[in-house]
């Protein structure tokens, strides 16, 4: 293991660095940090484990021959390594994170604490169900909230993120069609859809038909009808859509889709705009994944983990993947195998403050919330799904309550419209006068002639201390800038963000090109060479 640091080698002793620089390569509190392979040593460890007494191994012929070559760090070194790395990151806790479509909202630390209660964090997925009734109850409780919030009768809890939820929902649709003896080959997807939508459809062997939007950014029911046929399995529609607009024809679209025997898959990534305001079940949705890591604030963690429960309509409720909870008069049951009778795990809670304690939600014997299907979907992953995320999401819901959830959506939409109104005189809105939902979409028309691209503008925001908005998505407008502030931002925070955006916009129009082309200048790194990275992939030390 080499201990030299290719990146931030200390200035060779006894040479003089330029006056503007430092000898170390550091800049005050901004410290360069090498790779563990440069810092660590294979004979160092930061974990003390007692060496076992002599014993006869049972590894047969398979004791490791290959040397591992993994560097080890003492604990102080490890601490410093990761703290320094963290300091090169931006997070919600450091500033507004206005990534459109990503719903980067506040992550309450209460939820982290709850997820670490030994009764949730330190239970094994395969210990006897009799020793984890509270875990099953928590899953059932979360499902009950999601049922009421979506107005849909069944929740597939196990999918591990949004895309996995899409897979779940589309598999349910395919299975439902198969159960009807049908095999269809097409899935309609609007152009503004997220990449996971067509990718999911394709994974299941569907051909993707792209549906264009009309001038106002929404999908025209008439246009949809043109593409519909009995070979269409489903439409995958995001609502509010990725332009930040509520699909105003959604009810008509749902009816048309259902009329040809197809299903309406809704991408729920933008659910945050409408929680407590509009129930997907009320507008004809058959399946919708919910990103707990967006709408319900489980931390994004630099790319995951997430959780993507899927709400299913009555038509698809029989295709919930294994395992799932069943609520009936006896209490909360759990189905791990199909066909199989639910194992009764817990009685319904009586403690106040839970959704399942409310008789209207807990249901009677007759209305099992999730009914095993005749042809079950099977299992999508090991164990019970993303328990750690369920705990956090439920803590979020309990904290907000029906009132807070609704208020959060309203604030999210208000914040986005406030940004829209505060910027529209300088930046161009592709869809003109329509108010937006929880995110506002600008295009790059206003940058025309400045020699500055959407990307340049985004990078200049970094110098201002802000994480950029989502750029170049959705694909339907040119040089898209999609800003989603979420309800977590105060007015003061928005006002400052607006001031910076306006300052930059005026600078762009005023010809201050270098500020943008050279950006970022003040971040830990200048612009990185992505072409080189892709052309000469170096994916490991």
């Amino acid at each position, binding site marked *: 293991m080499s201990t030299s640091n290719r990146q931030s080698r200390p200035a060779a002793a006894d040479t003089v660095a330029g006056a503007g620089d430092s000898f170390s390569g550091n800049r005050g509190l901004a410290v360069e940090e090498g*790779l*563990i*392979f440069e810092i660590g040593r294979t*004979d*160092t460890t930061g974990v003390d484990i007692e060496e076992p*007494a002599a*014993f*006869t191994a049972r590894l047969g012929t*398979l004791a*490791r021959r290959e040397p591992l070559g993994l560097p080890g760090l003492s604990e102080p070194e*490890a601490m410093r390594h*990761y*703290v320094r*790395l*963290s300091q090169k*990151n931006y997070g919600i*806790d450091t500033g507004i994170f206005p990534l459109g479509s990503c719903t980067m909202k506040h992550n309450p630390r209460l939820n982290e604490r*709850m*997820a670490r209660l030994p*009764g949730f964090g*330190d*239970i094994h997925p395969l*210990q006897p169900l009799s020793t*984890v009734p509270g875990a099953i109850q928590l899953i059932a409780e979360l499902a009950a909230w999601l049922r009421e*919030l979506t107005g849909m009768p069944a929740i597939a809890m196990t999918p591990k993120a949004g895309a*996995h939820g899409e897979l779940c929902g589309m598999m349910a649709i395919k*299975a439902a069609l198969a159960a009807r003896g049908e095999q269809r080959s097409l899935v309609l997807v609007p152009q503004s859809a*997220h990449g996971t939508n067509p*990718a999911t459809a394709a*994974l299941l062997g569907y051909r993707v038909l792209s549906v264009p939007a009309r001038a106002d950014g929404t999908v025209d029911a008439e246009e949809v009808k043109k593409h519909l046929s009995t070979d269409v399995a489903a439409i995958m529609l995001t609502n509010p859509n990725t332009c930040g607009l509520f699909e*105003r024809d*959604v009810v008509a679209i749902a009816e048309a889709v259902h009329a040809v025997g197809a299903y309406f898959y809704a991408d729920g990534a933008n659910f945050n705009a409408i929680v*407590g*305001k*509009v129930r997907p079940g009320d507008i004809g949705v058959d399946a919708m994944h919910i990103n707990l890591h967006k709408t319900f604030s489980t931390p*994004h*963690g*630099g*790319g995951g983990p*997430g959780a993507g429960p899927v709400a299913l309509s009555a038509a698809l409720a029989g295709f919930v993947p294994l395992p799932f909870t069943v609520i009936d008069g006896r209490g909360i049951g759990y189905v791990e195998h199909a066909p199989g009778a639910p194992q009764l795990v817990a009685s319904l809670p009586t403690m106040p403050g839970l959704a399942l304690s409310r008789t209207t939600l807990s249901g009677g014997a007759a209305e099992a919330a999730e009914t095993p299907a005749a042809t079950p979907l099977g299992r999508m*992953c*090991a*164990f019970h799904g993303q*328990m750690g995320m369920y705990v956090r999401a439920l803590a979020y*819901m*309990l*904290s*907000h*309550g*029906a009132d807070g*959830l*609704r208020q959060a959506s309203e604030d999210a*939409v208000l914040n986005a419209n406030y940004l829209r109104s505060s910027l529209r005189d300088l930046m161009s809105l592709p869809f003109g006068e329509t108010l937006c*939902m929880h995110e506002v979409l600008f295009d790059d028309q206003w940058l025309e002639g400045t020699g500055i691209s959407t990307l340049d503008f985004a990078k200049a925001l970094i110098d201002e201390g802000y994480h*950029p908005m989502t750029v170049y998505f959705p694909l339907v407008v040119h040089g898209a800038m999609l800003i989603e502030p979420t309800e977590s931002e105060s*007015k003061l*925070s928005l006002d400052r963000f607006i001031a910076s955006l306006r300052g930059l916009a005026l600078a762009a129009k005023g010809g201050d090109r270098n500020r943008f082309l050279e950006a970022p200048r003040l971040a830990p790194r*200048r612009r*990185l*060479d992505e072409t080189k990275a892709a052309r000469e992939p170096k994916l490991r030390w």
Partner: protein
Amino acid sequence: MRYLPLTKADRQAMLAKVGVADIDALFAGVPAGKLTQGLLDLPRAKGELEVERVMGRLAATNTPAGSVPFFVGAGAYKHHVPASVDHLIQRSEFLTSYTPYQPEIAQGTLQYLFEFQTQVSLLTGMEVANASMYDGSTAAAEAVLMAHRLTKRRRALLAGNLNPHYRASIETISRLAGDACVALAPAPDGKQDLARYLDDSLSCVVVQTPDFYGHLHDLSALADRVHAVGALLVAVVTEVVSLGAVEPPGAMGADIVVGEGQSLGNALSFGGPYVGLFASRQKYLRQMPGRLCGETVDKEGRRGFVLTLSTREQHIRREKATSNICTNSGLCVLAFTIHLSLLGTAGLARLARRNHANAVALADMLAAVPGVEVLNQTFFNEFTIRVPGRATEVIERLAGKGVLGGVPVSRLEPDRPELEPLIVVAATEVNTDEDRAAYAKALREVL
């Protein structure tokens, strides 16, 4: 509400700026009659203290692994995670950041992904690894899909001793994607001649080592036979700590190695979130699913990292992507890589020895209990015992005595009477002499 910064006055001022009279004017796009009136039928907002009470009561009804002699494994393992790991992953800048799409202000995330990819490559003995999948089971399913793409065949052979949840996950996607999938029957004695089933219709053979019953397998000969029919060998590792003691699949000819990384850095958490490991040969890189982090330089020539080769991914390639995965297991990756950086070669090897030693000691003790038979010749930290009677009942009776004694095989393989007397038993570094003695004693009593 403590999480909502806007005051009433703010809302008024902002509505005025927007030029509307009330909040519902912003929801004008919603079709008539579809806006809910009033509040949904759910409890109202609660303070922290009340939420803690409600959640605390739920949690209190569960039995934490750390509170009893604990021997449950079968794909998720109770290991000791250093306090520094959980502290570090909660750093705001890690916890509350998004996928590193703006690399200039996400070098922290990107560098640990690069380090993680290297660690996974080293551990598995493979050339490249990606930035993670959801978990081991979904990684296994993706490996099969990748093998299909690489071989342009659509039929997979699954070894009988693959973790049944993994098998089911592969079967589900195969069935619904219209691919064939042949799963062999379990061989709890660890003896299965996979070579008999090979032919040139197969895209891949999926085999686990240590397998579900704990047996270790030398894959070298199998790899040759698999390659001879033009198929790929997919190796699954559900207990990554084993790689500190046993020969890695990469050294035995595997083409794709997938695994569950939970054992390092991650809590049991009732099954998730975990971290899927995915490694392969360099030549298969372009068909890999998931994110990849690569090294590059910035405008001033300084080293830096970016997400790369994204032309494989859904956000660029849409329906032509190698997978639909987007969000992966970022923070679990971080926990994994911190724990492994702390361990290093020396620490991991000792941890593995300790696990193995504890399992050997336990196997010997349980084998001495009348009526109990240990099925394994070889194992790492997990093995299978046969008990008189139904294992599920034995396990329940042990639980009644405060010992969580393992997983009855029938919990995962329900319809096979021959498996009903079997228990998969795991031992890790957290078990003490007293734990083992308590297990043996309780087992004696309940049999």
